[in-house]
Each structure stands twice: as structure tokens, then as C-alpha cells.
């Protein structure tokens, strides 16, 4: 394994006393001094700044770029307009998931993909293997730094340092070549927290100044830094999948209830189509459920879930939820067993704890 890399914001984290961990080969703050719970609250109530420079970026260009993407992603991008973003799983032919990605359409022959840090190399190779026709691929991951500004105050903060009219930017839309405090950026109205917010991509050279400008603009809005720990809890509360937990080589998008991002009817057949159609017809024996603990206890990844004395699945992500003040989890369970049982439990070490299913997402912001 190569030595873990520093992002261009590493010195900022150190100055703010961030607890640094190695995450997918990147040195990133897991939390800052006042703690994960406060970071979650600050994101829901004010605004927080996350370093997400570990995310990978891939450029896809060429006359066959759209066809290429239609073949590798499960969602239908044919209706995607310039300046719009779409989320999609990328599947293997057997329906297992390579990664889940964002596709930014710059124009019909030019796309910007955002992929998971740990999957960047694997994804890029998969794209190369599946490339045909006039498609030019470039791994831009090393060129971009990325910040996520998340929370209700995000727009007010960012608007202070850019002339771009942010109120006109709709959710899941972006602009490129946006001047933010003198830096040339891609700005998108996206995030992984369930709050309003923006993700800002810039060159490594501009990163430090961009952080400082956001930091300064954020002071009157009580902007604070947040780490990977809060990010994971926020996305869990919003029931957003995390690759390696709710999606993997062995978990299909349908099992993760991502049906609305799978378009078997689109004009161009895609990797995994047949397998997913078959799975849908035959029924799914492990389906994602939201769980809420009825007793105090922390349901964590890998813990077995039981109905009576029968094991019916496992927890894929779980945590204490600061927003709800409850213990919550997402779990893959046998849907028939869930239907039939009145005694659902999570096994935590030597004891089992009562739990009930609950609607996803656990948290939805008021608009």
C-alpha cells in the first residue's frame, strides 16, 4: 500500500486540531475538537465545511460519450440536460455494483464523473475495458481538490464570494468556470448530508485560498469544519447508500432499493440489465430496511438481525443519530421474514436487542 496522501487542506485540518485518519489512502479528519455530534447538529442547523478531495473525478469526452455512459450505468442519461447532474449505479453484468457515481453533463459529448475514492482506480480500469468508439477518458482525480459546504446557511456563505447567482442553481445542477474568490471552480448544488449545500471543485493550487475565503465568509454564519465521522452519520440519517455497505460487488441496486436509478427500459442495453430484470421477476430475498432500536444499544455493520430464532439478515450501517436522538441502522433483511415476524432483534455481542423497521429516510429536511 502506498503511503497515505495529504489533500491540499491538510494544514487547515491540523490547525483546527482535526483528528486525522487514513481513509482509502487519504489523510483526512474524522472529527474536530468539539466532536462528531456537534458537527452533525451544526450541519443541520447552520453550515459546515468538509474536505472531500479524496473523491475521484473522470472526464468522458467524444462523439460516443453518451452511448458509452448509457452502456455502463443503470440510470437513463438520455434526458440529461447540459448543466444537470444524475446519480447512477455502475453494474457488473451479474448485477453486482462496481460503484455509484455522479454524472455531470457539460454537453452531449463531454461529461464529468465523480466516483468514490476507494473505487477510483477500479472504476477507471472498468471504464477503459468497456470503452468503444469515439470515447476519450481521463482520470482527473489528482488535479482536483473538492470541498462540500453543507447546511441551510450554505448559499448565504458561498454567495458572498461569487457573482454566480446561486439561487438560480437548482438541486443536482452545476456550473463550470465559476469564479469563487478568484479561483476557477466547478460548483454543484449537491451533497451527501441530506441538507442543502454545494460541492466546489478547484485546482490544488487554488485550494488553500478557497478554504480561507469560505472560512472568512462563513464566520458570521457560524461556519465550522466537519469530518468524515459526521459525514457518515449525516448520510445514514438521510438513508444515502455508501459503497461497501449498502452497495457492493455482491449487493445489487435493487436490493438497496435504488429502483428509481435503474432504467431497464432505456434504448441502449447496459451492463447488468438482464440480471437485474431477472432479479426483479424472481423476487429479492435480501432487501434494504430502515431499523430503529427499541432498547438502547448501537447497531453496527455486520451485526446479525434475527426474527424469532432465525437469522434473517445483517446490519449494513448503523449509528447513534444525533438529529433524532435514536439508534438507527440500515439492514439487508429477508422481506418475507420481516413481514411475518413480531419479534425483530439485532444481535449485539452476547445479547439481542429489540428493534423495529421504520420508513426511510430516517431524516428529511423541511423545504
Amino acid at each position, binding site marked *: 500500500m502506498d503511503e497515505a496522501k495529504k489533500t491540499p487542506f491538510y494544514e487547515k485540518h491540523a490547525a483546527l486540531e482535526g483528528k486525522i485518519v487514513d481513509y482509502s489512502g487519504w489523510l483526512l479528519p*474524522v*472529527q474536530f475538537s468539539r466532536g*462528531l*455530534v456537534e458537527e452533525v447538529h451544526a450541519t443541520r442547523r447552520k453550515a459546515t465545511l468538509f474536505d472531500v478531495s479524496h473523491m475521484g473525478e473522470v472526464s468522458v469526452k467524444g462523439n460516443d460519450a453518451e452511448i458509452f455512459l448509457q452502456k455502463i450505468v443503470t440510470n437513463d442519461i438520455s434526458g440529461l440536460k447540459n448543466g444537470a447532474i444524475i446519480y447512477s449505479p455502475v453494474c457488473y453484468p451479474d448485477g453486482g455494483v462496481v460503484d455509484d457515481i455522479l454524472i455531470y453533463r457539460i454537453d452531449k459529448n463531454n461529461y464529468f464523473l465523480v466516483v468514490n475514492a476507494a473505487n477510483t482506480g477500479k472504476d477507471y480500469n472498468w471504464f477503459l475495458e468497456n470503452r468503444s468508439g469515439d470515447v476519450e477518458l481521463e482520470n482527473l482525480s489528482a488535479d482536483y481538490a473538492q470541498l462540500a459546504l453543507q447546511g441551510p446557511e450554505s448559499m448565504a456563505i458561498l454567495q458572498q464570494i461569487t457573482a454566480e447567482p446561486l439561487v438560480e442553481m437548482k438541486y443536482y445542477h452545476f456550473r463550470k468556470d465559476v469564479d469563487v474568490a478568484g479561483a476557477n471552480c466547478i460548483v454543484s448544488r449537491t451533497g451527501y448530508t441530506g441538507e442543502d449545500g454545494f460541492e466546489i471543485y478547484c485546482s490544488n493550487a487554488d485550494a488553500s485560498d478557497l478554504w480561507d475565503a469560505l472560512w472568512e465568509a462563513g464566520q458570521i454564519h457560524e461556519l465550522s469544519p466537519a469530518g468524515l465521522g459526521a459525514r457518515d*452519520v449525516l448520510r445514514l440519517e438521510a438513508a444515502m447508500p455508501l459503497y461497501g455497505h449498502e452497495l457492493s460487488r455482491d449487493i445489487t441496486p435493487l436490493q438497496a432499493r435504488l429502483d428509481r436509478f435503474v432504467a431497464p427500459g432505456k434504448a441502449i442495453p447496459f451492463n447488468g440489465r438482464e440480471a437485474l430484470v431477472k432479479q426483479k421477476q424472481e423476487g429479492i430475498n435480501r432487501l434494504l430496511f430502515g431499523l430503529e432500536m427499541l432498547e*438502547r*444499544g*448501537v447497531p453496527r455493520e455486520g451485526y446479525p438481525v434475527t426474527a424469532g430464532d432465525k437469522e434473517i439478515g445483517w446490519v449494513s450501517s448503523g*449509528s*447513534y443519530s444525533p438529529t433524532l436522538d435514536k439508534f438507527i441502522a440500515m439492514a439487508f433483511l429477508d422481506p418475507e421474514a420481516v413481514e411475518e415476524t413480531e419479534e425483530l432483534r439485532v444481535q449485539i455481542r452476547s445479547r439481542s436487542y429489540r428493534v423495529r423497521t421504520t420508513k426511510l429516510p430516517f431524516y428529511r429536511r423541511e423545504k
Partner: protein
Amino acid sequence: MDYKIVDGVRYTRKHEWARPEGETAVIGLSDYAQDKLGEIVFVELPEVGAEVEAGKGSAVIESVKAVADLYAPIDGTVVEVNEELLDQPELINSDPYGDGWVYKVEIKDESQLEELMDKTAYEVFVAEEEE
């Protein structure tokens, strides 16, 4: 970073503490350990009457991100547990040597306490861990 390290208790290399009070000893987690764990949200206590063994898991302390075993500093029989922690596990964060105590044991072997670190030794130990 400055951690509170108090007198009158003995410390383990896993950052538990034991405070002798006559025939029994109060057991808890050090300020350093609670800070490393972060916000504590759940505590699994031993049962009163349970036998704990030095160096073996005796309770489980969970923060939002992590699960940590509390290893028994000394052998003994659990005579009391801090039930306040069931509803307020965060007491370990706010008052690790006071209201955040975890359980009390009947001391079997005084010499086991002597083998643990005193305040000065633990200060050196924590400083080394921080490097």
C-alpha cells in the same frame, strides 16, 4: 492536548483506572481514553456478582464511531455498577473520575493495584502515546 490525570488512582496501560476504597476498588476510564473515544453513547455494564479478571474485558464502552472494551484493571467480584450510565453514558466524557465511574469490585489481591501506574508514571505513559 492536556488530559486530566488525578492522584489517588492507579492506571493501566489500556487507560482504565482503579481507585481503592477500603475492601473495594472503583473502576473507570481515564480522561485520555474518553477523549480518544469521543462522545460516548452506550455502556454495557457487567452484572453484579460477576467475576472479572485483570486484563480481560469487563464492560463495553461505545462512542458514535467506536466500540471499546474496558479491561478489568484487577481481579475481583463486581459488587456495584453505575446504573446512571445506562441513561447518561456521556457522564464518562464529562466526569471520567467522578460520576462517570463504571463499576466497583471487591479486591482479591492488593498487590495487583501496586503493579499499576501511579499519576506520575501514567503522565509519562500518556505523553509517550501522544508522540
